[in-house]
């Protein structure tokens, strides 16, 4: 790989990914289209020193050090700098949940937090939950129950579901919990309420609910 940023990437050197192939292709088209219009050089695009900050955190167990434009969201840092493209950008305003990752044990939307706010954070993305060879049980359950159609929301759904089951285990109440002081149980109503921050445009909700219910039964 010729990209110098790979030095900071937890993905490490690999072959050309589908995404890089697509980007390369698009860039060629864009360049052809812009010939003579003058494009900004890389140095001009570089953030001003005062508007950039150094940050160190762990992603999927691996340490990363980045110098980032302060405006970079955690989502953009993961996708554009660390090339972890499992977390998806849907609405980019915290409403769809496609960018859900875990910071520590907690699920968050990575589009509404700045990467530079995460000095020392332990971040887990879908790439850190499982691998194609060793899927996380929640990933296996989503495959088994067909908990997706296009798949765009799936990484966020799975990260959210794994953290949501921990929240129930920790006794955190929800809007539909009838007794605030009792240990909540994962009923169908609880599951739907607690997963309302993850939208599935294809409407695979009933299969998603089945997948999560199966795992909840196992971990309860």
């Amino acid at each position, binding site marked *: 790989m010729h990209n110098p940023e790979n030095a900071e990437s937890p993905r490490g050197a690999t072959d050309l990914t589908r995404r890089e192939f697509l980007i390369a292709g698009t860039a060629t088209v864009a360049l052809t289209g812009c010939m003579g219009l003058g494009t900004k050089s890389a140095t001009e695009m570089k*953030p001003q020193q005062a508007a950039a*900050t150094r940050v160190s955190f762990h992603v999927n167990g691996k340490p990363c050090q980045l110098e980032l434009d302060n405006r970079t969201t955690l989502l953009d840092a993961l996708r554009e700098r660390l090339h972890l493209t499992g977390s998806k950008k849907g609405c980019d305003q*915290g409403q769809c949940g496609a960018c859900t990752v875990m910071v520590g044990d907690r699920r968050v939307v990575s589009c509404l937090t700045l990467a530079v*706010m995460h000095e020392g954070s332990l971040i887990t993305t879908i790439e850190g939950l499982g691998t194609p060879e060793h899927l996380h049980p929640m990933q296996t359950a989503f495959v088994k129950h067909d908990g997706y159609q296009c798949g765009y929301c799936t990484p966020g759904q799975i990260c959210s579901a794994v953290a949501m089951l921990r929240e129930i285990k920790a006794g955190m109440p929800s809007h539909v919990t009838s007794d605030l002081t009792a240990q909540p149980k994962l009923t169908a109503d609880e599951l739907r309420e607690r997963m309302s921050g993850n939208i599935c445009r294809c409407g695979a909700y009933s299969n998603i609910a089945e997948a999560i219910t199966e795992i909840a039964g196992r971990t309860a």
Partner: protein
Amino acid sequence: MRPFTFERAKTPADAAAAAARHPDAKFIAGGTNLLDLMKLQIETPAHLIDVNGLGLEKIEATQEGGLRIGALVRNADLAAHHRVRRDYGVLSRALVAGASGQLRNMATTAGNLLQRTRCPYFYDTNQPCNKRLPGSGCGAIGGFSRPHAVIGVSDACIATHPSDMAVAMRVLDATVETINPDGSARKIPIAKLHCLPGDTPHIETVLMPGELITGVTLPKPVGGKHIYHKVRDRSSFAFALVSVAAIVQPDGTGRVALGGVAPKPWRVEEAEAELPRGAKVFTARLLAGARPTPENAFKLRLVERIVASVLAEAKGAQV
């Protein structure tokens, strides 16, 4: 997003002093509202002060038997705290009625109080908005005003305060604690924190430039039945059309605050003497002087019906 400089503050006093050095600075904690607004260039701070490292995430008992909640306690943790669930149920209920699981893990106690309206005209920079751009007019008055406020409004602005948590804090008589850039601290009763719009809808709280919220104190629990009833267009993850926070005692007396109907959590203590006389009489007092638009006049009747339902629930009737 406009470029900005960034620093991580170490202590509350540092943070407030940093804000005094940078007049265009904003504090950032959860970021769930501020970043959204910065992406749309509705908020354009030149400097951000990250307050996440200030160590303000404790919930402690006070000597008076109440609870002191650090400014950085996340909404999810506050809702789940055993004392809050046991003694301040209306607060737990209000918190879990808001936003999504992910956002409640991020959003803080202080940030929730200071979140800005979700008025669509405030969010759309192509529209006039006296709150976003003072003097530009109000698109909501005479426009789409179904979700807007019905009381406490002015000719300049009819936006609502969007918080659920603040409505419960209002009914609990919470006190907001702050620190100023000169190091002085002050306590603000929650009733006095938010301003009505008047001619200056861009001024939303009594906080001075650089003043930082460090915590919120709840007085000793008052017992009673704690209820938070929120009516919205979806059953989850939506702002309130109307919400009712109530603490009702066995003798029928109690306290009620409303969300979704005013530029601040709406409570009229004098009206609460009418609570034992039922929802109709009480609501008439609570909403006296309301100025709804034709599109949101339904909220007046909705408030009365939710209050009736809440009072019935408090009595133990099936609702």
